[in-house]
């Protein structure tokens, strides 16, 4: 009885002490992150605009923005484009290429690993806008890729950003983000002890059996977490697409962040732009929820 009360007291005091230490972090998070998220919900019910008569007085317009959204074909199209972008560049591209590189690097010479690492990581460390300009130049009519392609065969230069805009931004984003997945998987793979794999070989497991039944299950936690971080950060990619294609040509690469920017700051419809932010947040929450569930199952 006495002991139980003691431990209760201890938990209580731990709870209070933790709360005190967390206060500064919570204040900053609240003011600069959580309140804006709340405002996202609030503003999406207003007719907030940057200029014109509406800018003077903000009015609640109820579900007007949402009614507009339901009838906005561009929004549906943008959601689709966003999903294509997130799944192909984030979930499939970065995760599998990152895993492949980390897996192939395992057990290789340290200097060799370092050389490969530098090439992949530099793409990720440089500022996003520099990465975007680099790709604009790389894919241009007279850019490096076309120079190489035309020198190999007698073909005419391809305007990649106009003819294959979605593939272009997807490839650029895979290039940019693979390093993060690679580093996460490297850390996880290095933690797997050699003995476990050796033992599997002894028992007659083939190479592929080993990968699927030993290696992948052992880094499952890392895969799930990396998947979540990659998905959510790909969902928010703005600079790369805005710089490379500005959502075009036409609306071919108009993902949600680019569409939101266009509505809020080009068409000056802040209220509607905020409603689009809400869609991004909801998509993020759905992804986050699903992955967190997956993590807990683990």
């Amino acid at each position: 009885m006495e002991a139980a009360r003691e431990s209760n007291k201890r938990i209580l005091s731990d709870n209070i002490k933790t709360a005190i230490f967390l206060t500064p972090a919570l204040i900053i998070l609240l003011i600069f992150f959580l309140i804006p998220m709340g405002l996202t919900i609030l503003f999406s019910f207003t007719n907030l605009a940057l200029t014109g008569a509406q800018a003077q007085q903000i009015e609640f317009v109820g579900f007007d923005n949402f009614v507009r959204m339901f009838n906005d074909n561009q929004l549906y199209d943008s959601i689709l484009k966003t999903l294509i972008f997130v799944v192909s560049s984030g979930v499939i591209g970065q995760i599998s290429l990152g895993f492949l590189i980390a897996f192939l690097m395992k057990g290789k010479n340290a200097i060799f690993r370092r050389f490969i690492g530098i090439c992949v990581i530099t793409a990720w460390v440089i500022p996003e806008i520099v990465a975007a300009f680099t790709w604009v130049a790389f894919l241009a009519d007279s850019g490096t890729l076309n120079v190489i392609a035309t020198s190999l065969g007698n073909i005419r230069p391809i305007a990649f950003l106009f003819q294959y805009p979605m593939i272009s931004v997807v490839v650029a984003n895979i290039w940019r983000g693979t390093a993060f997945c690679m580093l996460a998987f490297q850390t996880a793979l290095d933690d797997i002890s050699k003995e476990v794999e050796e033992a599997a070989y002894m028992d007659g497991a083939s190479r592929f059996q080993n990968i699927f039944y030993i290696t992948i299950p052992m880094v499952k936690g890392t895969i799930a977490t990396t998947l979540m971080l990659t998905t959510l950060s790909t969902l928010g990619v703005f600079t790369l697409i805005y710089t490379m294609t500005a959502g075009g040509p036409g609306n071919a690469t108009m993902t949600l962040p680019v569409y939101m920017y266009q509505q809020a700051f080009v068409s000056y419809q802040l209220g509607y732009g905020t409603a689009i932010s809400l869609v991004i947040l909801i998509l993020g929450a759905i992804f986050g929820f699903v992955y967190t569930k997956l993590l807990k199952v683990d």
Partner: protein
Amino acid sequence: MRIGKVEKFIHHTILVVIAILFILPLLWMLFSSVDTTPIQSLKIPEQFTFQNYLGIIQNPAIIRSFAISLFLSFGQSFVVVIVAIIAAYPLSRYNATYEKPFMYTILFLTSLPMSAVIVPVFQMFLLLNFHDQLWAVALFMAGASLPYAIWLMKNFMDSVPVELEESAWIDGASVWQGIKKVIAPLMVPGIFTVFIFTFTGSWGNFLVPFILIQTPENMPASVTIYQFFGNYGLIDFGGLTAYSVLYSLPVVFLYFLAQRYMSKGFSFGGATKG
């Protein structure tokens, strides 16, 4: 692992091809920046020159934008490191009942896209007259990068043995003194890692200053890069690439300097064990 020679050769070849594909787009930047006649594609400079770089470092407006980037990134990273240490301490040392849900929330917030909150933040900045205020911009970015920093800092703090602290308490040190005198010195690599992660993210951020800063004189380096695009689609490739190299150098340098401490930043396997 038992790998045959052929397989080993294939592994190496694939890796080398991947590395070349990754570095190829970047080579253009390096080569053009020292070329007297740079074009849009990769070519070996016929004549080597530093003129492009001189043009950048002699331009006061560009120097100013780099200084603003430095201010934003340092300000943000400083706040983030201090607040993250304080927040990580109880998560690492006490057993609050809400610790697990809190860590999951942090993990989720970590990668919530900044672009999803930027419109309301813009509106909030208008209302509060924070517009064009660099400190407010730095604080917003601090808020956005705080979750990952707390996550990372907790990972590092978990590996500092609690016994060292306990002996300091026995000698009469307070909790705060324990953090300052015992934990912080042992966590120097961790603190640098958090600092560099935050700094790199902030240094390269384009969206936030693009939206939240209005006055051209207050724009950081990520936005002023647009000046190399003249009218009628003319681009000063020499200037653009030299600028890009100078702008990228600090973060590339910082990253590779601190790389050996950084593996903790990518250690997510333990996330589930909480």
